[in-house]
């Protein structure tokens, strides 16, 4: 029983909302045109086609396109050892689709992560909270319009956006430079650099405390 057979069975049931099977590198992808019915399709895939293992849920931000987000479900069956990918688009205005936690329990954390990173909500999720970032964090960091260098927050006690102790030093990469040249410490001329650093430090509030993390990553 190949992935293609399973995909055809799924299309026989939901033909009007599922696209043709797309094959790339031996994997079958089906695109669902109506995100609101994802839970229903997944339920059928699990109950009738035996896709009992949800490997992963990913999210893609197609910034500039409409609909903006794509949610990708990787399904796997222990019974017939086949893989199938389902994906569906979610527009930015609504940013919501039904949860599949009722089908697979493992979807719980995957969906929380997508909400945390992309800001797409899952209707009916039992506990939709941030998971990797902290409660109250205002941004969605995996969106394409979120800069790599991060954004400051207004929460001084939980997170601070003051310069790191070595920032501006001769061997420290400048985050958020416009290109690799601007980020590369070795190409900077020291005098210019110190002027620029001073100007940047002046713009920022004075450093009063050092934060040495009790959970530093060097702990094994």
């Amino acid at each position, binding site marked *: 029983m190949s992935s293609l057979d399973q995909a055809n069975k799924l299309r026989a049931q939901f033909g009007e909302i599922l696209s043709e099977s797309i094959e790339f590198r031996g994997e079958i992808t089906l695109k669902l045109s109506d995100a609101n019915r994802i839970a229903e399709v997944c339920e059928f895939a699990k109950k009738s086609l035996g896709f009992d293992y949800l*490997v992963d849920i990913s999210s893609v931000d197609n910034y500039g396109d409409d609909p903006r987000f794509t949610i990708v479900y990787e399904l796997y069956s222990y019974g017939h050892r086949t893989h199938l990918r389902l994906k569906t688009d979610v527009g930015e205005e609504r940013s919501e689709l039904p949860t599949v936690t009722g089908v697979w329990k493992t979807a719980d954390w995957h969906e929380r992560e997508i909400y945390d990173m992309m800001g797409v909500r899952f209707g009916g999720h039992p506990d939709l909270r941030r998971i990797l970032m902290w409660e109250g964090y205002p941004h969605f960091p995996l969106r394409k319009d979120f800069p790599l260098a991060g954004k400051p927050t207004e929460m001084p006690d939980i997170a601070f956006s003051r310069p790191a102790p070595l920032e501006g030093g001769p061997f420290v990469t400048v985050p958020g430079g416009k290109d690799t040249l601007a980020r590369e410490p070795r190409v900077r001329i020291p005098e210019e650099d110190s002027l620029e650093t001073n100007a940047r430090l002046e713009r920022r509030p004075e450093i009063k405390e050092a934060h040495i993390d009790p959970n530093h990553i060097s702990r094994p």
Partner: protein
Amino acid sequence: MPTVQEMQIGDAAARIQRVAAATDELSDIEGEKMVLNMGPSHPSTHGVLRIVLELDGEIITKATPDVGYLHRGDEKIAENMTYTQFIPYTDRLDYLAPLANNVAYALAVEKLMGIEKQLPPRCQYIRVICCELARISAHLLGVGAFAMDVGAMTVFLHTFYEREKIYNLCESLTGARFTTSYTRIGGLSRDLPPGWVEQCRKFCDEVVVNFNETEKLLTRNRIFVDRTKDVGVLPKDVAIDYGITGPNLRGSGIEYDLRKAHPYLVYDQLEFDVPVGSVGDCYDRYLVRMEEMRQSVRILKQCLKKLPDGPVNIPDGKTVLPAKNKVLTSMEELIHQFILVTQGMNAPAGEIYFGAENPKGELGFYINSKGGGTPHRLKIRGPSFVNLSVLPRLLPGHMMSDVVAILGSIDFVMGECDR
């Protein structure tokens, strides 16, 4: 308050029912439940996992894991650099088995490029050796730390003695003990150094002695068995529902190993068995890890015996970085090097998912490419992230002291959980 008799109920589900019944009776007495913060800097959480435990006496009624203390935004970083530049970041996912992460990531990108079948045999064998060394290294730590958590200090020192030898092998192989960054897209950063095969063979013989001693210290140790048997039972259906993978899944009795089910590299040409547990408790997970290490040694010995000669990189200048000495002496290689370093290779548009059987479970990469040298989206499926999501289901009904045993037996790494 639970009585001594209640504590002696072996079955976790029955225990929590008792507690729930008792709690209803006492619900108007103030302070019958206690909330305890475990972590993020608790020694048994192996890094920075925080669990908020709700306790009734010594029995856990609710557990809420809190992850993300080690979140570094690896997926965001990956979108802003070429495929090759991301290799060092994969070292920091499961930092107890960096070689296995390197291999999994390289295979994922090669699947996107459609070149995984062109890998030279020598490269494939060396990659399998890397994966299995990483597996032994990760399981040695997993078992050692697990034993230490439940009170057997000696085992930890014992297994670390052997891990040190793996680090020495890594050092002579890659130049680094910890952050190996050994693979390249379409090959390896370097071939095996002279004499390495003999060193590795010697290690294979020595490490088995260590396994035997570790098993003597633990497998029939009364204290260890009492603390792990019938504790943290993970039934088959629950394990599948929660997407558990790796030794934890096999401990629950499901024979599923990506190396067997969907063989990559040369795993289909090697003989090895997939150990499974029967009950799915902490003790079974320990037994599965011990046997997996023995099977890894078996794979290592076959690989070292069969190791073919030849190149380790695909001879395609448009994908694989050329050798350094060629770059400095030959025009064509210089151009290839320049293009690959500045723009990256030209990946096709498309999307793939590749999962590899890593020590902790299925490490998967979902790559969405719009073409060109950088991924549009790179999602990492960290096995520890998924394995930890079962804790709210697994912990309630157990006693406080069982938490460390369960955490130790799940054997997670926060680096790949938080990414």
